[in-house]
């Protein structure tokens, strides 16, 4: 039992500490003369690296004290290595931040044994969204999402990087529409998948929005590809709605309703929504480590808010990030919550399906 005086004393200490945090919260953290490491758990040159390198100089300008922001690539283990290192080593002083992507979120959601990080520990300060478009070869005879069921029974081939990559979404979507597709793995990226589509080696494909707009849309215009649906976008309430970048394409939930005559629900849908959010609306997120004081979190949130609301930001960002929302503060937290909270039942549903259909071992 703790003596009463000691208890009082420790309560007093806690009070003082509390007062101190409040005091410093008023004064924003200052990073003058510091060097901030933005850890990217991927190789140089990839999408996440590009994203971080785009933001780094802007963040440097927006943070108080204009610290140097450098990108530090820690690739390996399908991005789990860098995230594990961050979880283990980063100090809550705001000098190390982590930029994750869908490929970091998916192993976490799937319960991959290499994962030793927990998103619940981390504080999100930025979430960058993207979308995805699914398209098919015109020879399949499907003109739009309305006759998507015509794909049933045809020999569909899809070039994939792996069943547990972002390709999980197209594969799961087709499964939920009862359309059989043969996934051919070993593609080195979505670009390789698109090349296989152009060669006619595969007949269905999907690209993230930027890739679609820049490289697949020309194919659509030449009549060599027909877009059927986008995956969708997340609105303020956390519901999946039509992707505003592709107003003419139905979202996956709409297509599901067309095919099955009812709105999607159940374990499959719960799983789809969590994985979709982790892969697209929350595709790239910036985190501060566990236990970071509120003032530092606020400083970062403010800095990112300043970056993304700058008048020339949209124009600068278009090339690298597309026209998708860059959310900060409460909205970013909302995206993170939808993305990382998957029920045990939904998780098991996906794991069982991956094991059964693609021989993935957990």
């Amino acid at each position, binding site marked *: 039992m703790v003596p009463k005086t000691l208890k009082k004393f420790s309560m007093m200490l806690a009070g003082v500490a509390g007062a101190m945090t409040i005091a410093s919260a008023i004064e924003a953290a200052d990073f003058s003369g510091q060097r901030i490491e933005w850890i990217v758990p991927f190789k140089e040159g*990839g999408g996440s690296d590009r994203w971080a390198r785009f933001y780094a100089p802007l963040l440097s300008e927006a943070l108080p004290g204009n610290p140097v922001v450098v990108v530090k690539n820690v690739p390996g283990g399908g991005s789990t290595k860098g995230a594990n290192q961050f979880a283990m080593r980063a100090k809550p002083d705001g000098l190390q931040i982590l930029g994750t992507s869908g490929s970091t979120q998916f192993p976490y959601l799937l319960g991959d044994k*290499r994962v030793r990080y927990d998103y619940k520990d981390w504080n999100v300060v930025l979430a960058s969204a993207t979308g995805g478009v699914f398209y098919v070869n015109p020879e399949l005879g499907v003109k739009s999402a309305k006759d998507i069921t015509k794909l049933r029974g045809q020999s569909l081939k899809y070039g994939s990087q792996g069943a547990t990559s972002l390709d999980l979404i197209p594969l799961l979507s087709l499964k939920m529409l009862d359309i059989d597709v043969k996934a051919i793995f*070993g593609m080195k990226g979505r670009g*390789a998948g698109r090349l296989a589509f152009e060669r006619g080696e595969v007949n269905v494909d999907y690209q993230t929005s930027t890739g679609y707009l820049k490289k697949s849309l020309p194919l659509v215009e030449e009549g060599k590809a027909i877009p059927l649906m986008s995956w969708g976008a997340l609105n303020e309430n956390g519901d999946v709605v039509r992707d505003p970048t592709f107003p003419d394409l139905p979202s996956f939930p709409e297509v599901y309703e067309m095919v099955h005559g009812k709105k999607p629900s159940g374990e499959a849908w719960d799983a789809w929504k969590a994985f979709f959010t982790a892969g697209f609306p929350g595709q790239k997120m910036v985190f501060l480590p566990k236990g970071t004081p509120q003032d530092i979190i606020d400083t970062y949130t403010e800095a990112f808010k300043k970056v993304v609301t700058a008048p020339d930001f949209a124009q600068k960002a278009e090339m690298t990030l597309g026209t998708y929302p860059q959310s900060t503060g409460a909205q970013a937290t909302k995206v993170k919550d939808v993305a990382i909270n998957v029920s045990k039942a939904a998780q098991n549903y996906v794991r069982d399906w991956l094991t059964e259909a693609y021989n993935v071992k957990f």
Partner: protein
Amino acid sequence: MLEAMMTALATVASGTHLLYLVGGVLLGLAVGIFPGLGGIVGLSLCLPFLYGMDPISALAMLVGLVAVIPTSDTFTSVLMGIPGSSASQATVLDGFPLAKKGHAARALGAAFTASLFGGLFGAIVLTVFVLIARPVILAFGSAELFMLAVLGLSMVGVLAGNSLTKGLSACGIGLLLGSIGGAPATGEFRMSMDVPYLMDGLKLVIVGLGIFAIPEIIDLARQNRAISKSASLGSGWLDGAKDMIRHKWLCVRCAIAGCLVGALPGLGGSVVDWIAYGHAVQSSKDKSQYGKGDIRGVLAPESANNAKEGGGLIPTLLFGIPGSGSMAVFIGGMILIGMEPGPALVGAELNITYTIVWSLALANVVGAGLCLFLSPAVARLTTIPYSYLAPFMITIICFAAFQATRDLNDLLALLGVSLLGIGMKRFGWPRPAFLIGFVLSGTAETYLYQSVQFYDWGFLTRPGVLIIGALIVLSLWVSMRKKPENPVEHEEEEISHATNLKPQAIFAGVVVLFFAFGLLDATSQSFLGGVFSGSVSAVMLAFSSIVFYKLATNKVDDPVNYDHEHVGDHVGMEDVQSISHYLFWFVSFIAGIALVGFLPALFVFMTTYLRTKAKASWVRIAILVACTLGGLTALAHIMVLDFPRGYLQYLIELPWPIG
């Protein structure tokens, strides 16, 4: 099109463009000289500066940098036997023996003129090819890429050395080591024993360093002399240039191969130099000097690897699909300055494409010129006593290996591969055959699997496949036809054969066990996940067993018998330490890193080595060690990296850079 060319020409010739180009070239040369750094690091170093720069100048800098890395990485390949990057591994085979004979300047001269030629040739081809590239690239599907991988593997025949069974087994070790990690078809982890590091597979840079560099270092350290046998550097770089002109057709063929392989997305740049080297060997009448210092062995890979960068631009620019790691960063740089690769680059933006292509040519001229200018001075490195050079080279190699994934495990992997490399060197298992197997393992498996999925086995009747198939037959026929060579040389080797075959037999036994392990592991995978590694293991189990049987039953006269300990340069020299003596130094260094971290271990290692082996004075040691540690720390700060941590750092927190 003509208009686009004129616009591009005007841009390329403008002052600011040239200025930035030269800036990029200088940075590229500086980075390329460090083994293991190469294009990726160079490009990521200049990415922060690109932002906000005028796009054309930024592009000039990027191109300048990419173009010269395969030029400057030749320095360490030739002078030290350390592959400067994965694109110049084959250069080591003959470049380094030439340096050892005292012909470093000539080898460098030949290498740089060949690089220059390859780079220019690549640019000329590109100027035309870019217009028709799209359909050509689309015609090369997975089936054709698979056949190209087989064509590469067929080079093993000419690189196998005296014993074909041994050569094939060596290639098999490469294939099997290359298949460690996630299976392309299913993502199952093969032979990884639940070690996360192995799940990602072994990295080529580590394999190259362990197989070639470390065994050479140990060999030279034992002889304790300068790299160059003669104190004078002999013939100069002009002779090298003359060599290039003498063998111009070989360079043309290799440059074409380099361009083509570079242009096909999916094969990867590291195959090019091996294909070129294999081609040089197979097309030569007298093969006896290959591996011992044949200038053609330097010319072929060097003309190919510079042409490759030009070819590699095609899929990068047209499809946005990077042909190599450095091209991936190049795309990143382009997007940051507001240019998007895509079909427009052969349409409305053709002038940008030509600007890039010709900047590439210009950068090659500037880069090769600078390197030629520097080479007589740099070649002097080969006259330094080896006891001074060795600790630096070990440091450079460890630093390079550590760039692979920036993990302590990189160094452990380096140690493991080095043991294999030392064994292969000592017992005459052809290391080029091994490396071809390793480089092509993933490519061959992925594309075979994909072709069967896309076309069924009918892919074998596709016209492209048949054409490449005919090339393979031709290539095999050419190399078989010229097989019997230099009988005198053959005789000599036979006489020097070892009589105690036990060490060789033990090594062969380990190889047999490795294949058995591969087979066992394959049986625990699904069919698609294990079929490749399983088949390779099964076939190679047979070949390696033959080798083992012959050695175990003491077949002294068989060509499988080879022991460097009986024929090497050091035989008969006084005071030669055993291999294990220097291996002990290396192992202690790595163990030291695991214990106290990289920099502290390096400090102890260098100090002791310089004191005991080079007998250097304390002042000199202090200066050398301080410069090395300071230089590395500065480099690490710029590149934003932490050095490998040891157990000490795990226990207590230490400040960067030792923590």
